[in-house]
């Protein structure tokens, strides 16, 4: 017994947390998947197996389509804008500017706030009677209109801007760390070779940051799939359901519309989406290590 303990001390120490993970993570994933094959309403019941019917219903619910499309629309725009501007800000800060830590803090501050606070701040800023629109009007540009929150076609931009505001700091910090990690001598060699700075960035430095890009994309993608509080605080899915995201849809079905079966099906589809992002990432990561 003692020898067993000595040899397997790390396994023994880890086993309680492994057991907890097994139950509360994988157990409940399995439980959710099971619920999605039933016709549960307000409470999970397993006496009414319906097979894949909930999935069939899910894909025939227009609101789910709006939510699912929004996720990709919001996600795509958010990824693109956050990565491009985050990288740009990191490059600007990397120019050994004065008061660097001041600018760094400004960009990083929003990160310290919860999405709920971010959502409320931007709700005020984008409110036509309180925020930016009023400010611009006071400057004399009375024809200026900023109706993102009330226009179903543009409400997605409100989400993108607020999420960017929040996520930019992290992305900037990751890129800045990557830029600072690049060997000074590469810059010197490029200076001697006579390569202009922008070309060094485009052809040498940014390609060297590929692992950072991968990390950033995965982190942001996960936050896109999970985005819930931001939508609830900023638009509450509205106007109508035009800014719905799958997480909001799932919450709504489970707790307001007492349609647990359908909600579980949407949860499983979301999990599938996450895995579709994660598995290639893990594959690349483990292959690089090997």
């Amino acid at each position, binding site marked *: 017994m003692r020898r067993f303990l000595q040899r397997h001390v790390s396994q023994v120490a880890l086993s309680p947390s492994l057991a907890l993970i097994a139950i509360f993570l994988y157990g409940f994933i399995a439980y959710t998947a099971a619920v999605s094959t039933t016709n549960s309403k307000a409470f999970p019941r397993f006496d009414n197996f319906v097979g894949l019917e909930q999935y069939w219903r899910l894909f025939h619910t227009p609101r789910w389509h709006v939510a699912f499309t929004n996720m990709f629309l919001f996600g795509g725009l958010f990824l693109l804008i956050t990565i491009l501007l985050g990288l740009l800000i990191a490059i600007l800060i990397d120019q050994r500017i004065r008061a660097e830590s001041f600018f760094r803090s400004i960009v990083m501050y929003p990160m310290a706030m919860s999405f709920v606070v971010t959502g409320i701040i931007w709700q005020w800023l984008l409110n036509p009677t309180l925020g930016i629109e009023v400010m611009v009007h006071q400057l004399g540009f009375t024809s200026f209109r900023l109706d993102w929150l009330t226009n179903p076609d543009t409400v997605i931009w409100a989400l993108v801007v607020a999420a960017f505001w929040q996520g930019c700091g992290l992305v900037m910090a990751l890129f800045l760390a990557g830029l600072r990690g690049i060997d000074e001598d590469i810059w010197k060699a490029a200076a*001697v070779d006579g*390569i202009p700075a922008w070309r060094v960035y485009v052809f040498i430095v940014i390609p060297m940051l590929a692992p950072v890009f991968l990390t950033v994309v995965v982190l942001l993608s996960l936050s896109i799939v999970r985005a819930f509080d931001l939508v609830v605080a900023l638009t509450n899915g509205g106007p109508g359901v035009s800014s719905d995201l799958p997480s909001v849809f799932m919450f709504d079905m489970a707790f307001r519309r007492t349609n647990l079966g359908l909600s579980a099906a949407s949860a499983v589809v979301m999990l599938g989406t996450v895995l579709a992002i994660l598995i290639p990432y893990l594959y690349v990561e483990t292959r690089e290590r090997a």
Partner: protein
Amino acid sequence: MIDIRISNCNKNYGSLRVLKDINLEIERGEFIVLLGPSGCGKSTLLHIVAGLDRLTSGAIEIGGRDVTDVEPKDRDIAMVFQSYALYPTMSVRSNMEFGLRMRGKPMAEIRPLVEEKARMLHIDHLLDRRPSQLSGGQRQRVAIGRALVRDPRVFLFDEPLSNLDAKLRASMRTEIKKLHQSLGTTAIYVTHDQLEAMTLASRMVVMKAGEIQQVGKPEEVYHRPVNLFVADFLGNPGMNFMRGHIRLDGGHISADIGAAILPLDGYAFEAAPADGQAVVVGLRPESIQPISGLTSGGGAFTLTLRPTLIEHTGSDNLVVLAMGDEEIVGKFPTDMLPKLGEPVTVGFDLGRLSLFDAESERRI
């Protein structure tokens, strides 16, 4: 013809004076090695010549042109870095081509040039690989190749071999030497490896704390160091130092070092010695040998001393000899090893002796 002229060059980082009034003139085709302990400002001086660091005051001329305010790319130099500094996302070929492409040279001219230099450095079979797929030695060849294709007026090397193992370092050293002999391009080479400095340099520059101590041919610096620092810095094992004072009597000059009186009549004094002047006598281990192994000339001087320790280094043997309260080290051939504790007669090659003023530490 002077190729590089460094005049009254100073470099400060805040209040830290990294380079102090450096003056150096380098002839066309010379291979100058900057040697000195870590932190003495060798890299800084090299970066200033390259234009990567701005100097606080002074001027740099390359090829008769004042380049003090000229960008690195317009100085007609190429540089090889200790960390190789290859562009990791590009193939070896692109690494070598990139600088030329940036200068607007047509691809039709670049291709054959890159291939020729690659063959010269035996890296032509590696052209399509990435730097990460190369060994350290191969990477350094590529870095040298990248500098070579530019066909610059001046090559700058910052400790290019210090990341390589001893054997590879020795063979790369020979190759760099051959390369320089065939190209004849002016080069400045930074190292803190004495062997590299001695073998490569046409002239070497010994630095200490931002100041040039001595400039000269390697033999000259080795055998006639201008001060105690240079004498001590060069040579492995280091020079033996014996404290004593000068004796002048009846036209004869000698140094009294307690355990012996060394005649100095054959010594070429740089400054007239005074009677009783405190001095440090320096003698390299290879100038202390068993009497029969001593190369004649300079007047052999013998002493009988007791060996206290023998170290075998492979080719030579270091014999520690007790002399009064001090110990000195001699280099003995293997077939003439003394027995420990049994006094042995050793010869001092006084023709190779160096004499320093004890106070100013300068050669006299």
